[in-house]
């Protein structure tokens, strides 16, 4: 009932007021006016968006590489690819026992209190589980790489060397087991929260993070010069799973509740990341362009981790998403 502003309209209003005693009708929408036009309480966020900064997506990226490198190292040891096993264990130790803890500690509000993480063991807190997984992983990966190097270079005599090779095997096995958890728990970490776009995809996230970790580890080892068919096979597997996840994500939409994944800059990050480590990496690998496929996968895996944290910030600041997510 947007009547034009005219003398005639004013006469109408006067007439109506005289006859009915009240004039119901639209007023003027004042920008910033007192009538709430925003969802919820003045559009204020209902849940809090994550406070995490650039360290966390980078940690997800390196943690994934470290964990799954140990898996590749374990398989390489089993099938006697010693050089590959050494490279993979070095990756696992550097990314998992050096870079990851540094990034995690940097992200803390009070880095000097980081040891308080080891005060308790709480299976219901994924953050606590993650810290223990990372600790266990480092405890296996560092002795694992040392034992493997000492054994490879035949530093000690026969008996001690046999012991070393046995120890290396045990530590690498341990690193592989904790490594798979290190690469996947990060999906649980953000999946089991109050952020709608995250918890609605809590089953997809660990699959995505773990598989992206496996593909990234293989890709990085390939770029370091280990061009063997086993890594190429892993590359195919990871890119194929990521392509399936891209399809899953575009089919399994929840409307307003997870719009942060499909709209805004955060949506573009997810899409670009998933295309790079899904279909594009698959096609490049299919045509034998292994280094390009590896680079595409690595960049995609990194962008998608940044994207998922960005999604959390957008989704957590969006009150409508929280209300809408309660239907699921």
């Amino acid at each position: 009932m947007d009547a034009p502003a005219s003398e005639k309209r004013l006469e109408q209003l006067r007439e109506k007021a005289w006859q009915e005693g009240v004039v119901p009708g639209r007023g003027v929408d004042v920008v910033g006016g007192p009538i709430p036009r925003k969802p919820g309480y003045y559009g204020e966020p209902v849940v809090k968006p994550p406070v995490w900064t650039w360290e966390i997506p980078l940690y997800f990226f390196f943690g994934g590489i470290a964990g799954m490198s140990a898996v590749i190292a374990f398989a390489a040891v089993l099938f006697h690819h010693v050089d590959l096993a050494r490279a993979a264990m070095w990756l696992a130790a550097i990314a998992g026992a050096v870079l990851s803890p540094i990034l995690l500690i940097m992200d803390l509000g009070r880095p000097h209190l980081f040891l308080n993480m080891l005060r308790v063991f709480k299976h219901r807190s994924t953050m606590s589980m993650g810290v223990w997984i990372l600790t266990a992983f480092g405890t296996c990966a560092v002795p694992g790489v040392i034992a493997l190097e000492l054994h490879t270079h035949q530093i000690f005599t026969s008996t001690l060397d046999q012991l070393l090779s046995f120890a290396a095997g045990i530590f690498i096995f341990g690193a592989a087991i904790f490594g798979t958890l290190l690469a996947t728990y990060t999906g649980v970490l953000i999946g089991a929260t109050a952020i709608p776009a995250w918890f609605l995809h809590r089953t997809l996230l660990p699959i995505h993070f773990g598989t992206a970790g496996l593909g990234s580890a293989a890709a990085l080892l390939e770029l370091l010069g280990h061009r063997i068919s086993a890594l190429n096979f892993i590359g195919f597997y990871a890119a194929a799973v990521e392509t399936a996840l891209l399809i899953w994500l575009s089919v399994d939409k929840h409307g307003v509740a997870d719009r942060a994944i499909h709209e805004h800059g955060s949506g573009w990050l997810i899409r670009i990341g998933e295309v790079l480590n899904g279909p594009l990496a698959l096609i490049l690998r299919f045509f034998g362009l292994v280094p390009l496929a590896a680079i595409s996968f690595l960049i995609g895996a990194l962008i998608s981790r940044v994207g998922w944290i960005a999604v959390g910030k957008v989704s957590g600041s969006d009150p409508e998403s929280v209300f809408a997510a309660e239907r699921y």
Partner: protein
Amino acid sequence: MIGEGTHSTNQRRHAYVQENVEVGFFTDPTVCIGCKACEVACKEWNHVPDDGFVWSGNSYDNTGHLGASTWRHVMFVEQDRQKGGQIVGSYSVTGNGEDPFRWVFLSDVCKHCEEAGCLEACPTGSIVRTEVGSVLVQNDVCNGCGYCVVSCPFGVIDRRPSPLPDAGGAFKCTFCYDRQKSGLVPACAKVCPTESIVFGRLDDLRAKGQQRVHQLRETGYTDAQLYDPQETSVRGIHAFFLLLGEPEAYGLPPKPQVPTIYLKSAWTAAFATAIASIIATLVAFAFSS
């Protein structure tokens, strides 16, 4: 209740901490006058720093939302019950009894959930449950990992940014645990001039809340309801509210869930991925050897 003077549960001394009695806040917007004494008392007693002076333009609310440095927040809800359009004039003049606008004040606070997302998420054990059932952050233990922030279904707890004092740690309402240990009532309840905030035994307050809802419904406030999500995984809150209208208008989630309910499906996916990755890697090496 008001009129009881020093016998009111808001003023008299107690020994709830020593007796392990579950306590609570019942906040009733129908008697709130929006004076913000609770916000001031909370800041002063707990030495909560100011987090900026910003004009929001949202009614008289320049506080915005609960956070690391805002533990009580008086909301000024302007409800337009003729949803969608602005109404000129007042219907109540013509006698149909419906005010097109309603101005509701509600003092928001940490809900102190029965199943608290922040407490479950805390990896340092900094967040604990006290004898009176409240949820307390031990500031000297918290290392500021930020996981509680995304685990609270009500968006209450937050990490305090620099350069504020005690920056980097997570903060929220303490239910004035220090005062309660000494038999004193939380600062906000103590200063509330209309006893819109009532402190007391949780079971007493829940009964009182029900009574108040019936009273209001009988006098024409048909949309009065209690906000105490006992049927969701949060399993009830220690600081519960009376609401006029729907929870969304107050920025409260109608069905809050504690995020730990998502753990099972997420970990299942994680373990499945872990096993699939090991098998894929072993198969890759087996076939290429």
